[in-house]
């Protein structure tokens, strides 16, 4: 893991997550289990590589969510998130 990989945000992780979760994941609010900061997934800092996705808190840098996509399987590690919050609203073009 190099600093170079810490360049994107949760928006870039959404394709993988949306393949399995039929919600708009970029607007999902994640509460950091370490510091309590709350942010939409789209804002979290993405550390990604071929091995998977690590989303880190924008405030304290702790891991909030880990995800690995292998073929038809998604494994989520949510231990860094104290709470996931969803709000209703338009997300698709209709």
């Amino acid at each position, binding site marked *: 893991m190099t600093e170079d990989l810490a360049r994107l945000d949760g928006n*870039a992780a959404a394709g993988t997550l949306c393949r399995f979760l039929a919600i708009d994941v970029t607007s999902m609010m994640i509460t950091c289990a370490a510091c309590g900061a709350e942010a939409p997934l789209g804002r979290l800092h993405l550390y990604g590589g071929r091995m998977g996705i690590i989303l880190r808190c924008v405030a304290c840098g702790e891991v909030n969510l880990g995800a690995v996509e292998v073929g038809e399987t998604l494994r989520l590690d949510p231990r860094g998130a104290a709470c996931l919050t969803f709000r209703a609203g*338009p997300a698709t073009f209709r």
Partner: protein
Amino acid sequence: MIFAERLDWQVATAAKFCRETQGVVTIAFEVPEWHGHLAGQHVDVRLTAENGYQAQRSYSLASPAGNAAEIELTIERIKEGEVSSFLTEELAIGDDIELRGPIGGYFTWDRQSSSPLMLIAGGSGVVPLMSMLRTRYKVGGKAPARLLYSSRTAEDIIYAAELDRLAANGDGLSLIHTLTRGAPSGWQGERRRVDKQMLATHAFQSSEQPQVFVCGPTLFVETVADQLISLGHAESAIKTERFGPTGDKR
């Protein structure tokens, strides 16, 4: 709960190419199964080599919100970027690629919104913001809008002519360019990196309660967002999307 479509890969056929600047190309794709998108959303593009090697990157949609079966991606060729180099230099009309989308509900603009719209772009970060401006024009939006757009040189400005036309429509859009690596003689715009003073001059005041979208390289986005907050803008009113050359190497 916000329900979105479950995303599957679909075939997209290259239909049209338009060179925007030396390193930036817009590609129109025909996507028969496209269900429409919002302004600001993106797609993942996947390329598969003959030996099965796959590479995948995210690109913003440039075309306006709607459900047309032809979508546009504007792609900057990244040095040594395997996907962007292929798309901008080797892909030809009629070739198929795979994509999935539209993706994202966070970095999207609601075309019903009447709040002032403040768009701040660094380089090819202008692409999703252009989708918002094209959508605004298409629906006849009259709420005030501003684009503050930072480019390296005048030759690097993407969509230059179309932006001038949009700003000349008299529908409340103003356009502020800034150049960071030298300006031509007679240049009317700004000529430095976006800083706090520039934002104080050109951005809507926080009291006007604008919706703010910032897109560009990570450092650009972080700097601009921090300065906006120091000018009194609410963090929740600032939506950000980062990209980077390193994203292409991911």
